[in-house]
């Protein structure tokens, strides 16, 4: 009797001791360093240094011009500020030479980009390295070389800038891309319009059509090799397909007594979604480019137009005035009623799904002003980025970070122009064009 009691007591005492020691030692073992929350930050362009690329033979002005384009691309994002060469302490004279990081730290450069260019015949080679100055090493994956023909030197510069931008920010690049737009001329009430393409920064403009007929709303195919647009060549608006290389074009849907407009490719490039007007009613249709099969996606007495696929091809966002005012709706790619996602005051139109799939850009008219805005795909987090007399028709950069759109000034002499803005609303700027321009559509990143 006594023995079991003693045994129980020993167990109790042992447990009590263990508990006591555990309570006492736990806080000591869990000792952690002081924890400090950094609750604010500065939002300012990152200082970078891009010394003129080194001429490694025959490069001539190419080295300087490529450096200039790289700097222009990076500074144009609003994310970076180039430190002029007059402030550089170290002079980079050899691509493979040493880098005195202390000298670059001293001028507060956070990233250093060195490069070299060589030309042999019509072949040009561009190589570069991007250094993290404070870590004192080359940024991972930012030591590359491109080669090609000399007439493609601008593309090489854009590619260099794309890599640097991508490595620093974590976003995809968008500099090596093109924009198709409507180039305008003549007075406002008799404007002549023709299709044109240019680099994203307004350089290398080339015209795709003459100005004998009105053209509207061009859109690139996912591969960037074709364009669909609305043409008035026959007197009626017709969606038309053009091959960019050969400029061959053909009307896609020519049912008598109908108008077709607002075309856009599906993500796989095999079908085109557009609006077809018949008897005063507009609905959205899908055309298979291979078979020519046509399928109707909406069936409503109201105006349904401006369709745009989600990047995965499963949904379509469009605008409709079925509620009495233009609003934005999302429906399955196979068609259907659609769910309204815009809920604020005013009218919403020209929705475009982001290539990243996270946002939908739109035009909003409210209280006598026009805005370009973005919202989540369920309509939440609506954010207006611009405000003016007339802003409309946003198009996404390939990385889903920047929007380009048309801005028109008021009055009889009002002019159209192209503008771009970051989706945070910062870095609003005009794209340089030879004359009035409208209806931009960004291409995918070029191969």
């Amino acid at each position: 009797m006594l023995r079991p009691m003693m045994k129980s007591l020993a167990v109790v005492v042992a447990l009590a001791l263990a508990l006591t020691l555990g309570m006492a030692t736990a806080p000591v073992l869990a000792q952690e360093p002081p924890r400090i929350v950094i609750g604010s930050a500065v939002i300012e362009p990152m200082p970078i240094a891009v010394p003129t690329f080194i001429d490694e033979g025959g490069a001539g002005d190419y080295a300087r011009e490529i450096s200039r384009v790289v700097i222009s691309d990076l500074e144009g994002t609003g994310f970076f500020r180039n430190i002029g060469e007059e402030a550089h302490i170290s002079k980079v004279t050899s691509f493979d030479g040493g880098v005195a990081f202390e000298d670059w730290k001293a001028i507060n450069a956070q990233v250093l980009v060195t490069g070299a260019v060589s030309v042999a015949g019509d072949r040009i080679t561009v190589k570069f390295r991007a250094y993290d100055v404070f870590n004192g090493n080359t940024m991972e994956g930012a030591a590359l070389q491109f080669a090609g023909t000399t007439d493609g030197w601008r593309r090489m510069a854009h590619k260099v800038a794309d890599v640097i931008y991508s490595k620093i920010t974590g976003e995809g690049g968008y500099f090596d891309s093109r924009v198709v737009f409507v180039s305008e001329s003549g007075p406002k009430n008799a404007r002549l319009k023709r299709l044109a393409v240019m680099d994203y920064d307004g350089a290398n403009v080339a015209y795709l059509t003459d100005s004998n007929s009105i053209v509207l709303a061009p859109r690139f195919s996912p591969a960037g090799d074709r364009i669909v647009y609305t043409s008035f060549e026959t007197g009626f608006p017709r969606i038309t397909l053009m091959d960019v290389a050969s400029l061959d074009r053909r009307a896609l849907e020519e049912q008598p007594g109908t108008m077709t407009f607002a075309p856009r490719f599906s993500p796989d490039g095999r079908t085109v979604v557009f609006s077809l007007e018949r008897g005063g009613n507009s609905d959205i249709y899908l055309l298979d480019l291979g078979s020519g099969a046509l399928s109707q996606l909406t069936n409503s007495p109201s105006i349904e137009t401006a369709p745009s696929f989600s990047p995965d091809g499963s949904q379509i966002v469009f605008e409709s005035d079925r509620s009495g005012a233009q609003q934005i709706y999302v429906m399955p790619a196979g068609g259907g009623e659609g769910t309204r996602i815009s809920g604020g005051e005013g009218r919403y139109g020209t929705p475009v799904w982001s290539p990243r799939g996270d946002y939908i850009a739109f035009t909003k008219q409210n209280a006598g002003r026009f805005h370009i805005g973005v919202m989540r795909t369920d309509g939440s987090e609506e954010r207006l980025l611009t405000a003016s007399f007339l802003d409309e028709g946003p198009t996404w950069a390939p990385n889903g970070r920047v929007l380009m759109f048309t801005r028109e000034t008021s009055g009889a002499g009002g002019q159209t122009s192209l503008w771009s803005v970051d989706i945070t609303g910062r870095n609003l700027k005009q794209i340089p064009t030879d004359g009035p321009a409208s209806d931009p559509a960004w291409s995918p990143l070029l191969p």
Partner: protein
Amino acid sequence: MERRFQTGTVVSAVGHLGVILWVLVGDWLFAAVKPPETIVMTVSTVTSAEFDALQAAATPTPAKEPVRPQPKPEPKPEPKPEPVPTPEPVPDPLPDPVPDPVPTPEPPPSDAPQAAEEQAIQSDSTEIQPAPEAEKIIAPDPVQPETVVTTADVAAPAVSDQPTDAPVETLPPTDATVPKDTGDVTLTEANQDQTAETGMTTSIRPKSRPERPAPAPDVAAAETQPAETPPQDSAQLTVQPVDDAATQDAIDALLGAAAEVPVTEDVASDTPADTGGQDLPQGPPLTGGEMGNISSSIARKWNLGAASTDAMSSTVTIRVSFSQDGTPIDFKLIESDGPTQTGIDKLYETAQRAVNRAHQDGGLPLPPDKYDTWQVLDLVFDANGMRAR
């Protein structure tokens, strides 16, 4: 007693006994940490008259010095010889660089005009410029460490060890370069106050579809632009002004809260044994003010200007080890939260840069007598607070 009650009794007894033992022997086994002794300084008051007298007593000597100069007229020639020797060394280095540039850069100018002309021409061709060949990876870091002296080519030293005469641009953020930061709310064109220039009363409605042309198709009609839709009546304008004062208050509150966040049990349980492989010595704790100073000195260098949207939606906690002179010597990402790994990685890079830059620009305000405490710090970088909305 039933067996089912025995278990409860035993557990209760163990608990009570543990508490009793803790009360009885706890103080003996685990002596309480003595609070740091209060430093007492004796202060004596001095009247203003006494202070003036002390100052007067201390200053007279420098006042007399200017009186004392023994201006010999002759010393003036001395400065003249001084400038003479200085220019002498300058010409010495010059001859070296002069021959250097001669071999290399002179040929390029002949190419220059050609390239410029070719590039300026706008092509009528619709073809996209030829794509560059697939990228070739260059040896990532063939560059010698900066400590190694690079043997100069004949042309010129690869990198100078010493600053040249070129003006060094110091780059503090200025009003001109730093966009106006509105805190949480991004100031965009859309939420700015309207001015007379930008304001308007009416806008035309966006065209849902093209205007149907006249019933009888006419080629001439196609060349004219469709009639514009008439302006519509405007409704009330809703503008969301940014309240700078409120934003600043919120930032200040956040900063204050950051400074006062104590070491919590949650943190300990999240990362129980990860102390960077170090035994963390205990020292006198950092005060709220000291932690606030550290936070704000890093915050001033934490630049999110080039951060991706994913990075701006992320939070990272990094464990930083410091040497005794306050140099950050080791970084470790110990906690993270965000939509993508890329975003987290980029935010981590910005955090590292912030600490390094804060150290570079005068150092972090780390109290020297508390090295044991700040030898390792956990720094939480929450970019969500700065996310544009």
